């Protein structure tokens, strides 16, 4: 095959991942906006399609399907373009097919009403085995994509002994190493859930399933964040004439994320019995540790802005901010995402706090928090990045770039309105995950205005997502050719320090990360195994 034919074949795989992701966010947005209005009491869900089924679909499609397909697509893209070779795309297609089969299985089961268990599928709510199998198959598909990325790492090392891996590939590979370690938790949980839902085991150890779920659940959010950081470090600087602030620090950041993302999950379980306070305290300390690579990233991103501005002869804070291409949707998606992440970071430190979490646990504050994180830096960066990838994949110029720009602006405003009002209602005690906001006849604080505002923010987000879908799909139909399909990734600043060899040892850091994860969970796991658990038979309560 010629290089051009190879690139076309690679592009088709990435397009499949990217547009599946687009389909997921489109459906997720439709369920989401309905849910916002329903929660505010403006509309009510029909009995044949209840609120909780919509909530389950929204959560699964947005948190598990949209994000995962985007990150697999992005990782394949940066790997293919950074390591050109005559390659087969079998693994990329196989991964996509398996992920899609898993998604379809889970989605159909939810649609039929056989898995109204929300995206956290907490036992002993007992869903149909097809839901659990579907989720497992989706994860198995991501492992095939992980294999494809890591196989290219091995190939590059063999072809270029002694040379550092291209930065985007290093970042994608450390993201997938982290993901492999994290998804061990899903597999462990499914080994309990699937036999139980099939009726082969009489009951389930509820706390054990929760320990496994959150072993996976928090690194899942770092999977999203690492995906966004890949874009911030290696793609966004090319939009403002910038460079990577430091190659060494970027690799260090990702190694820290690889090490610290997993051993933190118990901060989701602070309010639970059966886990001693000492392990809760330990996980607070570890969770605060994982803030450090985000501090590094904040510094590196702003330093890269400033160095680019100075090269262009612009100095001072305001002038630097003005020098950035806010009219470019690729940049503005990431830029607004960064601003939203400041809010997300503050909230995160509160949620992970051993003593403060009890004030916000399971209130809509948490919903506000994860919308401003996965829906802020992650999703908005991904949509901006899609505007960069689509022309480079399809050879077609973006249709309606003005709509794309307004998409990012509307998202930023809508997300601020929705998230801030949810944070506020949460402080008043409004519970998350409930179809009812008014609790007729009950002495509730006045959180209803905030919930109305949140629905309004959600509606703006819905419009924003529809604009994204219009641009993404419109580009395929408008068919305006663009010649340039090359993808450039940001180079390190010329005077940045050379990268120490110890930062190149991906496999070794991966092994250390696994050890860290096992150590952080050894104590609580030992505690659970020494308290003989009563098994819960489980039931279908919907």
């Amino acid at each position, binding site marked *: 095959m010629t290089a051009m034919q190879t690139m076309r074949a690679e592009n088709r795989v990435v397009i499949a991942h990217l547009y599946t992701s687009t389909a997921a966010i489109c459906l997720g947005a439709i369920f989401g906006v309905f849910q916002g209005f329903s929660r505010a009491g403006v509309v009510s869900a029909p009995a044949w399609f209840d609120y909780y089924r919509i909530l389950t679909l929204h959560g699964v499609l947005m948190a598990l399907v949209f994000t995962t397909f985007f990150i697999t697509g992005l990782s394949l893209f940066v790997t293919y373009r950074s390591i050109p070779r005559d390659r087969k795309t079998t693994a990329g297609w196989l991964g996509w097919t398996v992920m899609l089969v898993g998604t379809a299985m889970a989605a159909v089961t939810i649609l039929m009403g056989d898995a109204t268990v929300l995206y956290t599928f907490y036992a002993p709510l007992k869903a149909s085995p097809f839901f659990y199998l579907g989720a497992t198959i989706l994860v198995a598909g991501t492992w095939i994509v992980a294999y494809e990325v890591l196989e290219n790492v091995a190939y590059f090392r063999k072809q270029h002994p002694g040379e550092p891996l291209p930065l985007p590939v290093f970042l994608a590979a450390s993201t997938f190493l982290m993901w492999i370690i994290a998804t061990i938790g899903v597999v462990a949980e499914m080994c309990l859930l699937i036999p139980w839902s099939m009726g082969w085991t009489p009951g389930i150890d509820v706390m054990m399933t929760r320990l496994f779920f959150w072993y996976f659940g928090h690194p899942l959010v770092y999977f999203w964040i690492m995906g966004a950081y890949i874009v911030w470090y290696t793609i966004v600087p090319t939009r403002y004439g910038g460079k990577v602030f430091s190659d060494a620090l970027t690799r260090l950041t990702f190694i820290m994320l690889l090490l610290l993302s997993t051993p933190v999950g118990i901060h989701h379980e602070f309010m639970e019995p059966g886990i001693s306070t000492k392990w809760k305290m330990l996980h607070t300390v570890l969770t605060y540790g994982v803030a450090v690579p985000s501090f590094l990233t904040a510094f590196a991103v702003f330093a890269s802005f400033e160095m680019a501005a100075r090269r262009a002869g612009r100095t001072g804070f305001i002038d630097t901010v003005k020098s950035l291409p806010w009219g470019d949707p690729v940049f503005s998606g990431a830029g607004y995402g960064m601003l939203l992440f400041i809010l997300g970071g503050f909230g995160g430190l509160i949620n992970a706090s051993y003593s403060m979490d009890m004030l916000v646990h*399971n209130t809509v504050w948490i919903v506000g928090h994860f919308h401003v994180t996965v829906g802020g830096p992650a999703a908005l960066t991904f949509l901006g990045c899609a505007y960069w990838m689509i022309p480079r994949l399809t050879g077609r110029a973006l249709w309606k770039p003005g709509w794309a720009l307004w998409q990012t602006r509307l998202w930023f405003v809508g997300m601020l309105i929705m998230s801030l009002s949810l944070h506020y209602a949460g402080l008043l005690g409004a519970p998350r*995950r409930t179809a009812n906001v008014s609790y007729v006849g009950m002495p509730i604080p006045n959180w209803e205005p905030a919930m109305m505002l949140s629905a309004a923010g959600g509606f703006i987000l819905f419009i924003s997502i529809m604009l994204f879908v219009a641009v993404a799909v419109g580009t395929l139909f408008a068919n305006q050719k663009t010649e340039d399909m090359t993808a450039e990734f940001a180079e390190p600043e010329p005077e940045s320090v050379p990268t120490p060899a110890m930062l190149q040892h991906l496999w070794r850091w991966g092994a250390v990360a696994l050890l860290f994860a096992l150590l952080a969970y050894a104590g609580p796991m030992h505690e659970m195994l020494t308290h003989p658990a009563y098994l819960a038979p489980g039931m279908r309560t919907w």
Partner: protein
Amino acid sequence: MHIHKYERWWLTFGIGMLFIFLATIAFAAFADGINPPSGMQQLDPAKVASTPPFDHPGLHKLHDGSYEAYFVAHIFAFAPSSITVPAGSTVTFYVTSPDVIHGFAITQTAVNMMAIPGWVNMMSHTFRTPGTYFLVCNEYCGIGHQDMAGKIVVQ
């Protein structure tokens, strides 16, 4: 590895802040006794209805004037659905579930814990201000989850 001077300042500031936060949390835990609930007592979910004191859930006054309140969180209600205590009372809430997981949260207080089948969770609160407090299940438990609520009346 060489790290840029400004970056070292920034990291020192950031990590320093984390240490201050952690010191505050440790102080709150060890000096003020602010800890999350971590009930370690176990109870067979099949035997909740026949195990005292959960066979007769409700409020019990202790000799020192404080209260113990035993709650069963089940689909889709709390038993009891309401309790009344005098202002200034310290109440220790014990909660368990015979079926699926539930939440047990009292708005405008720090009482917020999970009811997990197989375990008894516990948390104390002193009600200083009279009023009616809203008790809510804040973890999804099924189709009637939104009806699962109760009251704590402080007189």
